[in-house]
Structures are given as structure tokens and as C-alpha cells.
């Protein structure tokens, strides 16, 4: 029996400023391949200072392109589960944020959906594409490695163009 399935190309951004960040990210990519979809491209690891909060440790970010059959909300559920399994504690993060009055906090792993096919929407749970992409160099650099010419459906600009505008 032949079954028609829709495969959607999804770009995920992974970040960590844990002491074992590189190892955590590599494991996350392996688990994504097992539970979210086939990982077809992986960017280089890019290092940057923490954004939105103070931390002694730098962040490592990388991006992956994944072929998925699930819808965007299901992808979100799965990556949240992976974050939890790799030690992310959102309650603890919120407590630290309140204490320090900062927007973000250190975390062992953070996974965001950058692109879900060429979808463009926003609701209380999810914003697709990632809403700060054109403002954040730490996100753009790994995305440019694997999807430099992929046009942002809402902004009509490519990650390469966004990065050039940000760094010029």
C-alpha cells in the first residue's frame, strides 16, 4: 500500500551555555534525528556571549535542518521534551530570571524552531519563523551555514541578507 506523506523542511536552532555545551548539543542532534525527523544538514558550532543576561560562560549555537512529517506544534512538543530530558528546568530558569531581573537565564539546552517549511504564523504558543531572527547575530550565523538563501516568508529576506544588514 502506498501512503502519501508530506515532508516539511524545518530549521532548528540549538544553543547551550552549559559547561558541557558541545557534548549536550551533539546529543541533542542525535535525539532530534531519532525522534523529530531526519537531520539532513548540521551547521558549524558558533560561539557567542550570552544575550539578554549576564553569564561567565559563552554560548555555543548550531542549526540543523530536519525533514519532518509532524506539524509545527508536534515538533514544538518534541523539542520541549528533548530540552527537559537534557536537563532544562524552565521553572528554575524563571526563578533565576525573577531574582536577577533579566529576560533570560543560563540553560543547558535551548531549541527553537527557526523555519517550518515556508509557513508564517504567530499565536500564543508559537511564532514561525522565529520572531527575532533578523535581529540576532548568534542565531543568524549558524542558520546561514545551512540555509543562507532560504527566504523568510514574512520579511522576504534571506538569512544571508539579514546577517549582512546586521553586521555592516
Amino acid at each position, binding site marked *: *500500500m*502506498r*501512503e*502519501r*506523506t*508530506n*515532508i*516539511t*523542511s524545518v530549521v532548528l536552532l540549538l544553543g547551550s551555555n552549559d559547561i558541557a555545551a*558541545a557534548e549536550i548539543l*551533539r*546529543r541533542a*542532534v*542525535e*535525539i532530534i*534525528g*531519532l*525522534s523529530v525527523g531526519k*537531520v*539532513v*544538514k*548540521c*551547521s*558549524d*558550532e*558558533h560561539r557567542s556571549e550570552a544575550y539578554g543576561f549576564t553569564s561567565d560562560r559563552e554560548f555555543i549555537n548550531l542549526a540543523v535542518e530536519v525533514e519532518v512529517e509532524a506539524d509545527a506544534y*508536534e515538533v514544538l*512538543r*518534541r523539542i520541549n*521534551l*528533548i530540552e527537559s*530530558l*537534557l536537563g532544562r528546568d524552565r521553572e528554575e530558569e524563571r526563578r533565576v530570571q525573577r531574582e536577577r531581573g533579566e529576560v533570560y537565564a543560563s540553560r543547558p539546552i535551548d531549541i527553537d524552531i527557526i*523555519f517550518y*517549511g*515556508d509557513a508564517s504564523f504567530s499565536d500564543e504558543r508559537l511564532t514561525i519563523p522565529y520572531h527575532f531572527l533578523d535581529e540576532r547575530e548568534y542565531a543568524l*550565523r549558524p542558520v*546561514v*551555514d*545551512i*540555509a*543562507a*538563501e*532560504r*527566504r523568510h516568508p514574512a520579511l522576504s529576506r*534571506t538569512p*544571508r541578507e539579514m546577517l549582512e544588514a546586521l553586521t555592516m
Partner: protein
Amino acid sequence: MRYITVIVAAAMAALSLSGCFKPEKQGTRMLIEIYSQNVEEDPITHSTADIEGYAFKIKKGTQWEVSSWEDALARCITNTAHPAEQLTEPDIVASYDIESEYQMAFELWEMHTFLVVVDKTNRIYATRNYDTPMNLPEVYTQLHLYAWRKSGSANGWTVTNPFPDEKREPIVPTEDEEVDNEGNDDTSDDTTYNTTYNTTYNTTDEGGKEKIE
């Protein structure tokens, strides 16, 4: 949801217990997109230079360098802590395809490697200490070899320009040259080299892919 939870938990447990899910070590293919500029005013384009890449297996924690332009051409690297120690037979030679979007590919099977990319046309080279991410798919990265720039580091690469004061010719003809070329059938329609931004991307397979059960 429960099904997915079980899958992810099982995957995580396997990875945690074994340290590595796959029983055999698998290498990684590093694909490098190389960009160049001869002078600062040039557009950033895919490099069309004569480029070669090679890599050495190194011991963890050791630091290596290419000591000179001659060494870069001779495929010779030097241990920075013990300059008498040199390696001259690369373990890996990268493939180079000028027509490909990612022109250079390293097949990396060793955990710790020292990568060297040499632009023979513009006489600059880049090096990198690289801990290969085993069991990951292909890794895509970019390398910017700008002939007008002095030596520096970016994105894990150290780019060395041994001849920073050398006069470089622009990739794109200047306005003066364009005027000179007017009326020349061979060049009048070919004053820019737009090889970088012509790729298109299909995010979904229209109509879906077929799965046979």
C-alpha cells in the same frame, strides 16, 4: 504524545547509558563554502581560486600551526610547543569542486584534526583545530578568504595572509574598466560575477514524498 515521550525517553536512555547510541564510530563530512574578496570593494562571491585542503590527525591538547607560506604549499605543519616536531604527510586531503555550492569537503574520521585550506591563487591560507563531532551528519560551514584583509580569526578559523601589502586586482572590473570595455563583445555583458546568490530552495516536496509500506 505518550508514544513520542516513550520514543524520546528510550533514545535518551540509550544515549545516556552507552555514551554513544551508534555502536561504531562514524565520521563526519565537513562541507565548506568558500567566499573570497580580492579588494574590500569586491562583492562577496564564491571563490573561484585554485584552492587545496588537507588535514592531519593530531593528539588532543596539542597546538599546531603553519609556519610560513612555503610550509602551507609543502603541506607541513609545526607543533607550536615543540617547533622541531613537524608533520608533512597529511592524513586527509579534501576534495575540491569549484562548481559545487560547498566547494570543499573533508571526510573526517579522526577525533582531533588540524585542518588547512590554502588559496594558491591569492596566497592566503586558513587553519583550524577541529574536534570532529562523531555520529553527526554532514556539517556545513563557511570560510571567508579575503585577500585584502590582514591575518585574523573568525568562526573557528585562523586566516593568515602572509602578503598583506601585496597589491590585489579587483574581481569586478572598476567603472573605468567597464568604460574601456564598451563595444567589446566578449566582455560588455559580463562585468559582474554573480555566482553566490543564485540558488533556490524548495522547502517542501510539492505533492509529498511517497512512502511505500
